């Protein structure tokens, strides 16, 4: 009986570690190779805090007797979590500049190996290669929980709490933000959200939970040994998450049960060779699973709810009509002052790539509430100018003003906060999220995207989330695709994906919207939807600027056009005016 309880405890430990890693690996799509180290940091911290002091051991520090601060187990558990949290934050500092995933792999891999080595060397802190022993067990009053049958309940509660916490975080607006970053951090930044902070928090929170489990394991086993916190164990935890299913916590539960029972079962068959056999089996399972079913045993979004026929996200909201949506969404006042300055002014922008001058002194402006098209032959510098306005490409010289203020070179997320947002030629919608979730990502100032408010004011967050969903649905309705709201975007046609991207832009409430080739690669029927959608943006009073090749499209939509050639503005006016000028038409069509 004790044996089974002991095995169950080790599975529950693995499960809790896996669930916390899934928050990072599955939801945020970032790999940590050092999860076992945070597990260990928590263990050593808890051991040092709860071990008896020198005085309690008789006043003399004798060799072989390990001492600590003699804390109660509960504050020690909390401290272990905080220490693991801070350690993770510290090592992820370089990641602030390098959000690219491979750097985190490199960094955590090196951190794992170095820390594990240090644990064996720093005798005064970790007790050296044999670690610390004599860690006092958890007790409630006079009851000491030391037998497996007793401790199993503690671990069960901890596992349930960790799953609930990770579920709460992962399925919240904050989790949605993580999933967005996993797919396109540039798109998240273009929606006015800091692309770095959520990832650092996911990493640190995941480490904190591992630290907490480490403390509990220290209390249960009574000892902490460096050889328990190896790279092999880190990889084992990764395997649990990946085999179970990235981004699916239930999958991790299943994965932990399967892989956690592997060693005890193998021990019955092959005895002491169980450990290498276990590694061969889960290593091979990882390879085979990724080749045949990369989404894991339980794919993302597949939960108990799906089994009884409930759809993800529910359908509680009624699909609003276009008119209802139009009434509810923000109307921008175009302003009646005829002397008001243009909302965006571009002065003398210059950009060279090596010896090639792409933009050579372009100046123009966007008028409030109008649709302005940047047109011109290929290589005229349209996209380059566009990228310089959006802050994705630094200009060599020249300035960009937004509402009279200089915003040259401001990063994309800053510009979005100031009311200027862009779309991408290659859409960059979040493929594995629903259309509704995609658009919800555009909504600004969501309390649920702040980790602190998620913890402190969960009810306000839920209330705000209903408002966010309603608004997202309105944006989709305005573009005529509300009925697809709960479908995953990668199930939609390319044309519908472009509409989702425009709806997402609309949800930002930015009044200046820059669209990069909104109809390129779109089928004719969807082009009509895009045209009417952009017309709706104008109806709401937004200022729109677009780069577009299709003259037909520009003629139907644009109030004004800026004609570029060889990096300079050579004409401005209505599209019809420009197209009547023969020399421009020749330039454009290359005849």
């Amino acid at each position, binding site marked *: 009986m004790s044996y089974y309880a002991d095995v169950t405890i080790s599975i529950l430990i693995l499960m809790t570690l896996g669930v916390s890693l899934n928050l990072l690996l599955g939801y945020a799509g970032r790999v940590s190779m050092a999860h076992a180290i945070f597990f260990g940091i928590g263990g050593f911290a808890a051991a040092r805090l709860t071990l008896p002091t020198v005085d309690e051991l008789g006043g003399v520090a004798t060799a072989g007797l390990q001492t600590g601060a003699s804390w109660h187990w509960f504050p020690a558990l909390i401290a272990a979590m905080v220490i693991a949290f801070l350690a993770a934050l510290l090592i992820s500092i370089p990641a602030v*500049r390098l959000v690219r995933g491979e750097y985190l*792999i490199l*960094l955590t*891999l090196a951190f794992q*190996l170095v820390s594990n080595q240090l644990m064996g060397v720093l005798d005064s802190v970790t007790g050296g290669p044999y670690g610390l022993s004599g860690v006092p067990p958890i007790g409630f009053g006079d009851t000491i929980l030391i037998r497996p049958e007793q401790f199993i309940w503690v671990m069960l509660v901890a596992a349930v709490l960790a799953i609930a916490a990770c579920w709460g975080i992962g399925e919240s607006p904050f989790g949605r933000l993580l999933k967005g970053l996993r797919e396109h951090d540039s798109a998240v930044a273009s929606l006015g959200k800091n692309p770095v902070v959520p990832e650092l928090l996911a990493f640190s929170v995941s480490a904190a939970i591992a630290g907490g489990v480490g403390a509990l394991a220290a209390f249960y086993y009574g000892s902490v040994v460096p050889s328990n916190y190896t790279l092999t164990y880190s990889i084992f935890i990764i395997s649990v998450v*990946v085999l179970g299913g990235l981004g699916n916590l239930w999958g991790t539960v299943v994965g932990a049960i399967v892989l956690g029972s592997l060693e005890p079962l193998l021990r019955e068959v092959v005895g002491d*060779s169980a450990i290498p*056999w276990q590694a061969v089996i889960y290593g091979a399972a990882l390879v085979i699973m990724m080749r045949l079913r*990369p989404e894991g045993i339980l794919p993302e979004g597949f939960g108990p709810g799906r089994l009884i026929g409930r759809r993800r996200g529910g359908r509680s909201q009624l699909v609003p009509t276009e008119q209802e949506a139009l009434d509810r969404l923000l109307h921008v006042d175009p302003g009646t002052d005829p002397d008001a300055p243009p909302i965006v002014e571009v002065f003398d922008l210059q950009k060279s790539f090596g010896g090639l001058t792409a933009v050579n002194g372009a100046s123009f402006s966007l008028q409030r509430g109008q649709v302005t098209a940047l047109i011109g032959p290929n290589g005229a510098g349209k996209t380059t100018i566009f990228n310089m306005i959006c802050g994705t490409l630094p200009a060599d010289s020249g300035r960009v003003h937004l509402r009279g203020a200089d915003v040259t070179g401001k990063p994309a997320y800053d510009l979005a906060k100031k009311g200027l947002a862009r779309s991408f030629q290659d859409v960059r919608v979040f493929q594995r999220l629903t259309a509704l979730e995609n658009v919800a990502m555009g909504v600004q100032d969501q309390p649920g995207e702040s980790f602190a408010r998620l913890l402190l004011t969960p009810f306000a967050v839920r209330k705000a989330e209903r408002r966010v969903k309603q608004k997202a649905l309105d944006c989709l309705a305005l573009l005529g695709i509300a009925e697809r709201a709960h479908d995953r975007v990668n199930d939609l046609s390319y044309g519908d994906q472009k509409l989702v991207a425009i709806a997402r832009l609309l949800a930002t409430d930015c009044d200046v919207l820059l669209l990069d080739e909104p109809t390129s690669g779109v089928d004719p029927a969807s082009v009509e939807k895009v045209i009417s959608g952009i017309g709706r943006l104008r109806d709401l009073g937004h200022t729109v600027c677009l780069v577009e090749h299709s003259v037909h499209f520009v003629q139907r939509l644009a109030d004004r056009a800026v004609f570029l050639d060889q990096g300079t503005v050579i004409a401005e006016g209505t599209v019809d005016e420009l197209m009547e000028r023969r020399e421009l038409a020749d330039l454009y069509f290359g005849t």
Partner: protein
Amino acid sequence: MDLSLLAQLTVSGIVVGSAYALLGVSFGIIYATTKIFHLAHAAAYAGAAYAAVWASNSLGLPFLAALVVGLAAGVLLGLVTEILFYRPMRKRNATLLTIFLVSLGISVAFPNLLQIVFGPDNQTLPRPDNPTIAIGSVTASRHDVVTVLVAWTLITLVATFVVKTRFGRSITAMRTNPTMAEAVGIDSKLVYTVVFVIGSLLVAVAGLLFTTKGVATPTMGLAPTLTGFIAAFLGGIGSQWGAALGGLLLGLLSSWSALFLQADYGPVVVFGAMFLILLVRPQGLLGKAAA
């Protein structure tokens, strides 16, 4: 400061650093071209060593022939990984994360397979004598000299190949813009295959250089692979000389650290250097800033 100690540490730093440079170039060329975080590189390192030991002890092959068997095994392991696993996954547009996880799976399963087949004990390759050469108070072994010569000859060959030959330039083209490279008729499969052959050959050489001095163990590949990663990132991804310089620097740093630190802390110095470089100059010492 003891100057003769410094000189001795510098010499051993150069020897160790040359092997690290080889590892850096080996990992760097694969990572820069394919963007795959090829952790399974460790399998080629250990596989080469075990194959040479097996050829020598079980087949009774002479020393040099055993080394050739080792090299062949290393290259074969790299090729099998690319052709059997990475290539079909790329074809199905698998994400880099899933490809990395495959690599991770291989890097876990392979050393444990070695342990099941050959046992967990150290394996020794019968080797020729290794006389010590002394210049003044500084000593080096013949093996050290061979290590330095072999490493820098191979690095120079690879770096020249990539910069000077037509095929080498198509490797650079694949690295900087795969879509455009394919559009102008570069065969991506062939480029990837060649890159894996070069990278695996270099890592096999490093594995054999190690085994002809030390011993082979199932998990021997992991630490050198990580050193290769760090060297390549330190020097700058995409530059052969950068990765080589990164490796040499790592060797010197860990060797010099013995002047003021216990030997156990060597890896900490290496990690510290990497942390600092990533903070201050994320593109690496010789890397170009991303556009």
